[in-house]
């Protein structure tokens, strides 16, 4: 069940992104080389960055590395080998997990401000509110910046998902839960992990698009 759903969900995400990429071209040049430069620019530290900016970027890079390791060690045995994570794979997974959790905490603090929703992000929301509530909500007629809204939403969703993702496995390490709940928390860790990976892929995709458009 989990294997089937996971494979389907990952494929659907990748196909969806590909279709979106083709159907709604990003603002600016669609040159492939330039696109890759933008992808790399996500990983590189800009020279004009402040100390905090460098720290943010380093933490982000570390989080990306941890994310990749965790995703591979977590899903490869289940989806490819058809067995539970075990042995050195699990040790690597468990080693990178706390580092990733720490990175998530730092990113939460340092990125939260920049990912606040503003009235400019969703003019349609303001218009909807004005129409439904008949209040004097300021709203302009600019088009919605969907990618930015989704990008911010993905960030907050990732933060939210990280709570059950981390807690489900940490709580099972304490002498609190019996066998049934151990199964439940393990299942929760898997399913939340799957959603987390999908949201992270979408978040990264949107970051690339927005960077290409110069929106972030």
């Amino acid at each position, binding site marked *: 069940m989990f294997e089937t759903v996971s494979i389907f969900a990952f494929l659907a995400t990748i196909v969806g992104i590909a279709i979106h990429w083709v159907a709604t071209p990003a603002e600016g040049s669609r040159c492939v080389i330039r696109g890759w430069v933008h992808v790399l620019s996500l990983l590189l530290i800009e020279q004009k960055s402040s100390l905090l900016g460098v720290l943010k970027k380093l933490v982000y890079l570390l989080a990306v590395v941890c994310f990749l390791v965790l995703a591979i060690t977590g899903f490869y045995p289940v989806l490819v080998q058809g067995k*539970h994570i*075990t*042995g*050195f794979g*699990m*040790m690597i997974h*468990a*080693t990178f*997990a*706390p580092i990733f*959790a*720490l990175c*998530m*905490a730092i990113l*939460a*603090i340092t990125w*939260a401000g920049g990912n*606040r*929703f503003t009235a400019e992000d969703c003019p349609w929301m303001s218009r909807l509110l004005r129409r439904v509530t008949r*209040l*004097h*909500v300021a709203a302009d007629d600019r088009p919605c910046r969907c990618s930015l809204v989704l990008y911010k939403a993905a960030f*907050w969703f990732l*933060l*939210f998902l*990280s*709570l059950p993702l*981390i*807690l489900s*496995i*940490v709580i*099972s*390490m*304490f*002498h*609190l*839960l*019996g*066998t049934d709940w*151990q*199964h439940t928390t*393990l299942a929760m860790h898997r399913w939340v992990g799957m959603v987390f990976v999908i949201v992270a892929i979408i978040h990264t995709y949107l970051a690339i698009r927005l960077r290409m458009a110069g929106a972030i």
Partner: protein
Amino acid sequence: MKRRLIAVLVVWSVLSVPLIAAEEAAKLLGDEGDGSRANPIHLIPLFAENDKGEKGERIDPNAEHAMPFSTRWTCGECHSYGTISRGWHFNAVGGNAPAGRPGEPWLYFNSKLGVQLPLSYRAWPGMHRPEQVGLTPPEFTKIFGRHMPGGGPGEVTPTDIEEIARQYISGKLEVDCLACHNAHPGQDQGSPTGYAIQVTKMNFRWAAAASSEFADVTGSVADAGPTYDPFDPDAEEPKAPRVTYDKRAFDAKGNVLMQIVREAPKQRCYFCHSDLYCVEDGEKPEKWRADEDVHMAAGLTCVDCHRNGLGHNIVRGYDGEAADSVNPLATATSCRGCHLGDENGTRATGGRLGAPVPKHKGIPAVHFERLTCTACHSGPWPGDEPVLAKTSRAHRLGTINVNKEVRVLPHILAPVFARQAVTDANSSPKIGPHKLVWPAYWGTLDDKAAVVPVALATVTKVVGAVLKDVAIPATGDWSELKEEQVAQALKALDGAGQKKPVYVTGGMLYELNDDGTVAGRQNHPAAEPYMWPIAHNVRPAAQSLGVGKCTVCHSTNSPFFFGKVAVDSPIVSVSKLTRTQYEFQQVPYGRTWAFAMSFVFRPWFKVIAIGSVAVIAIVLLLYGLKALGAIARVLAEQE
């Protein structure tokens, strides 16, 4: 001619169907219960067996030449003896019963000859059949029948003329129903006149009577002359066995009130199934210092779980037993069966006999896929090294003149946490605690480089002559052997016609070099230790491995993974070798060590993870409140 033959076959088959059906339907009085849980009274006449092996005369306690009563003809009056004698305790010899999970072997040992050999009629891996070392069923019974409830090899009719003649005198060792079902405190298995000593004296016919509380047996078949006829009332043989019945036990009609119970009392089981762990280093173990199995302490008896019907196919109680057993309770009456029940079944079956359903708080579920229940709950608490264990069957516990020294042979080590042998395709090989014995024996290499044991009689004669000056320690421990002595013994065996002689001990196989010296090599399959799972004693849940701390097992010095298992051998240089527990679990050292090491950092992991979660939650809460504040502000401005 052909038509006639076919007609005969058809008539025979038609007639035989009702005959077979009638035989199957001919249940005796005691073969089937009527549902009453009350204990049936056994006020019964006793019968002897006659010289033709048939039902003999009724026992008269006043007769001058009384014969021992026969369980076959006494108990068999109301209980189908033939069906019972195919039960688990009696069916090893036939070879038709599935061997099932490896169990405790019979251990033949001889300190001076450097022999410690697991024997069994069951086809367990690594086991030797008695005939491979030249032991006939009567000889095997003479040595090991002391802790058998009769039947099996004791009832095999020999083919050798001399043995047939000897069996005419000794009789067969019938299934001794009293060994398990007699609740009278006078049931005597191990005293100087009891069952065990009678078997050793080859008084097979007299053993059951001698064990009962109302008969006394003197004399010995072994001491009687070869021409003695036990059925001849005029035979004058002062050393021959004689039975005297307690006349007070017989009522006016000549019946005896026997305290037979359906459910065997635990003390009856304990005679053959006791064990003792030498947990106090260097001290003689004392039974009073060890706790009984937690199930016994809770008020259960052995047969509450190890159940059987008339067929006596008793439940052994291991996972996957259903594939080997015809007992319908084989699955339900195991650890899982009682404590968890059938988790996928249509009705709740757990908690049988008041068994608590375990919660296993904090134990990751993967443990239940890889470990047996007994891994954490049974046997002695593991120390740095497995300890020496004694069992009733290996060390003659409960019989006379038992050597009570710690180092007495045979050397059984426990607990060894090893991967269990898989008995059926549905069971996964789990890790569980085992008792272990290192085989030591003399053999020859055959064409396929497999080791064939040399007959014990030959070893006694040839090797015994070479090692005649070797001292036997009073402790019953090994007599120390040197490699030169092994070389001499191998040469002697070679000279006695044993081609390519070898000596197996402590996981090593010694063979002669061309220059007459010996060379030892490891990893020969014949030298591998024999292990059988430990099921009892079950410790209370509060004393199970992993209670409170994961590091009981997951640390770099845990006995579970890294305990040293001594290699046992009369050769001093070999006996100093050790193996490590993880080798028996077939897991790699590096991974096991690294995983154990990772538990050092586990508390940090928890702190970092929980701290990170707290920070993320605070950020989410803070910005959530900010968003709520913004909405509130918008709404307030409208007013």
